[in-house]
């Protein structure tokens, strides 16, 4: 701002800048659009798979075994003559459910640990931190495997296992976020205005911790889908003949040289869903930053 500048023009240029910033924030990037479409498709597949396919995912038709992709069977058929496209579509539900629930479990647990550490006294923070360090010392997959070994194979246990394995990472992030918000100038300003601790927590700390978490959760779903598929692939999650991407990959692996479509299409869907969730998570993060 200059001394001689007419206040009106100064105001105007500030207004323009604000406008430009908000327009840039609003504009949808192509990658975001594609991710949105992919996720919408998966959501429809998860909620109402019969809208997207006429076949039954479990119906066996031995005479149609190992058909290559065609107009009749878009993604071909498997060793029992089941339609691969239909199985992939029906598989979306369990994959998304595992992804969402594993993330909820992971974040929920992390929120508890992170909040205890971030809001608690110094010794409490110390104790939680050491616990997290112990958990960090094990690779996440190993932690998940350990859990499954104890509680048995299955979709539910593998979901919980993935959730548990991701919790320490989230807990660290949440703790840091809470601490930096607590020490921020605006929390001090609220205290000086006379707000009670509870009001400051509800009005300032919680929203500023929660919104970045939304982005984190979206990123986490993509990651959890990959993990759950990996566990199923190892035969520790969903078990064949269930239509689940990881289980399909595992079953199709035997015929990989002759029938590539058995592994290719479920694999592509794992990648697509994880990538779409990641892009969306990053875009939420970006919007948060530019707020």
């Amino acid at each position, binding site marked *: *701002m*200059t*001394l*001689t*500048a007419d*206040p009106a023009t*100064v*105001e105007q240029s*500030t*207004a323009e*800048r*604000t406008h430009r*910033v908000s327009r840039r924030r609003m504009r949808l990037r192509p990658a975001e659009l594609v991710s949105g479409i992919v996720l919408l498709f998966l959501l429809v597949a998860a909620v109402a798979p019969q809208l997207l396919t006429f076949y039954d995912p479990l119906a066996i038709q031995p005479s149609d075994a190992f058909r290559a992709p065609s107009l009749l069977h878009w993604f071909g058929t498997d060793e029992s003559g089941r339609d691969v496209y239909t199985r992939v579509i029906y598989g979306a539900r369990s994959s998304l459910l595992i992804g969402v629930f594993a993330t909820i479990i992971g974040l929920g647990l992390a929120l508890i640990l992170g909040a205890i550490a971030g809001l608690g006294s110094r010794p409490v923070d110390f104790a939680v931190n050491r616990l997290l360090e112990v958990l960090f010392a094990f690779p996440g997959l190993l932690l998940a495997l350990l859990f499954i070994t104890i509680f048995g194979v299955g979709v539910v246990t593998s979901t919980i296992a993935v959730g548990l394995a991701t919790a320490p990472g989230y807990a660290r992030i949440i703790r840091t976020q809470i601490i930096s918000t607590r020490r*921020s*100038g*605006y929390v*001090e*300003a*609220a*205290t*000086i*205005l*006379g*707000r*009670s*601790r509870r009001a400051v927590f509800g*009005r*300032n700390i919680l*929203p*500023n911790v929660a*919104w970045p978490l939304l982005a984190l959760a979206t990123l986490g779903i993509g990651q959890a889908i990959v993990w759950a598929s990996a566990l199923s692939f190892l035969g520790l999650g969903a078990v064949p003949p269930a239509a689940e991407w990881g289980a399909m990959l595992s079953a199709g692996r035997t015929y990989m040289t002759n029938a590539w479509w058995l592994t290719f299409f479920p694999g592509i869907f794992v990648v697509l869903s994880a990538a779409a969730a990641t892009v969306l998570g990053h875009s939420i993060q970006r919007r948060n930053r530019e*707020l």
Partner: protein
Amino acid sequence: MTNPASTPLLDVQNLSVGFRTGGQTTEVVHDVSFTLEAGQCLALVGESGSGKSVTARSIIGLAGERAVTSADRLAVNGSNVLDLSPSRLRRLRGADVGFVLQDALVSLDPLRPVGREIADALRLHSNSTAAQRRARVLELLDEVGVPQPEHRARQRSGELSGGLRQRALIASAIALNPPLLIADEPTTALDATVQEQILKLLERLKNDGTAVLLISHDLAVVNRIADRIAVMNDGRIVEEGPAERILHAPAHEYTKQLIRAVPTGRPRGTTLSATPIRLSERQLRAVVGAETDARPPFAGGVVLEASNLVKHYRNPDGSRRLVVDDVSFALEHGTTLGLVGESGSGKTTTARLALGVVAPEAGSIRLLGEPWSELAEKQRRPNRRRIGAIYQDPLGSFDPRWTVRELLTDALTFGQAWRGGSQSAGVAELLDAVGLPSHVADRRPLHLSGGQRQRVAIARALAPDPEVIVCDEPVSALDVSVQAQVLDMLDELQRVLQLSYLFISHDLGVVQHVSDTVAVMSEGRIVETGTSEQIFTDPQHDYTRRLLDAAPRLSPVE
């Protein structure tokens, strides 16, 4: 070096610089011309956005990739910068032109010892052995006044204090004895006494024959060493001439405004800003409500009293560091107590003690004659509205998710609790009171200018109708004209609303202008207290004298 009488060392004729954005070029520097000769100092003075830094960077071809530079002549030491190949340009930088930036912390590689950083300049531009370079580095560090050069050369920039870091940067800039030194805001982030050392160093270099192009927003700094001054505004040089003439008999209206905005030596109550934000008493009354009777009758006297405060902080290694040491002061109703000192002297901790956000280990604070610091937070809360705060960085004190309206509503709803809600001032009236248009309400502070942000902070502080406001470096981050507006506004608010300010600043000029009484702080202790006049005309303590001597001023003290 060519004969300075025939060709000037630096010759800039009609320099224009624009930046490409999208398809168009926006010109930010228009037809700037000046010359500089050996042993002279030319100062480019202007406020942020005036184009002074872009001008300086263009001289060494560093205005940026998107910059479009044109000039009738842009010559350093006889060679035309615009015609030079990139490799010749690199030779020019370092060998012919030394460049010192404001923030030495980002200019020096944090992972390398400063000695190596300085040696780099020598290695790139001369054929010397490692041993020769090492000797020269020590010599340079000694020359710029870095004590224990052998020890310091091995330290990284993060381990050095601001002053030492800036000196190390100057050492690297002058390593090859360049005839021209460009210093862009070289002392802006530094304390007065450190600033004085850097200015002395620049002055010595100038006297030894180096041409110095000094970029600064601070007229007082410029006054100290510049022979000639060019005042820039909106990308143009509006006035250029001998320093003496520009500072004492400015011809251009902008220069006059700039000089008038400097608070140093201007008595209390004088208006600094050329375009002050006029506040009507009616507006202000509306803000605090008609219920002057709702205010508990305060008969005057001391509103904020600190006695023998002590506070330690814990170092990372676990040892304790004394930051506030036996501090006592008294703030009288309707007056301003200026707390002045250099960085690390404990000013901000004192402010936080006064605000009751940190508890003193010993001593106590009384607010409006009642206990304050020894209360539990719950008991303190009902009286919180009586003391407000304004910070150097208003942005950090605003919840990033809130618009101005939400911020002010938040502050107001607290005020309503005691106002009874009937005559609560609206957000619009608060904005009005600090001279902001009502449409600012729906913006986020991030999208406001520094001056506007600080006015929002003032509006928020006013919302609960406080008696005392703690101002912690409230104008340090602002341009001098915006600073003038904010200081004028604080002054007017005080007069109308009978506010009392605890005003903290490192800037002696600002403190002198706003304060009735002044406390000088050094290393956690208040070394001297007195009326503003006593402190500034007849300082008793050594430290106060040193501080006053170090402060650059516009006109010599009588």
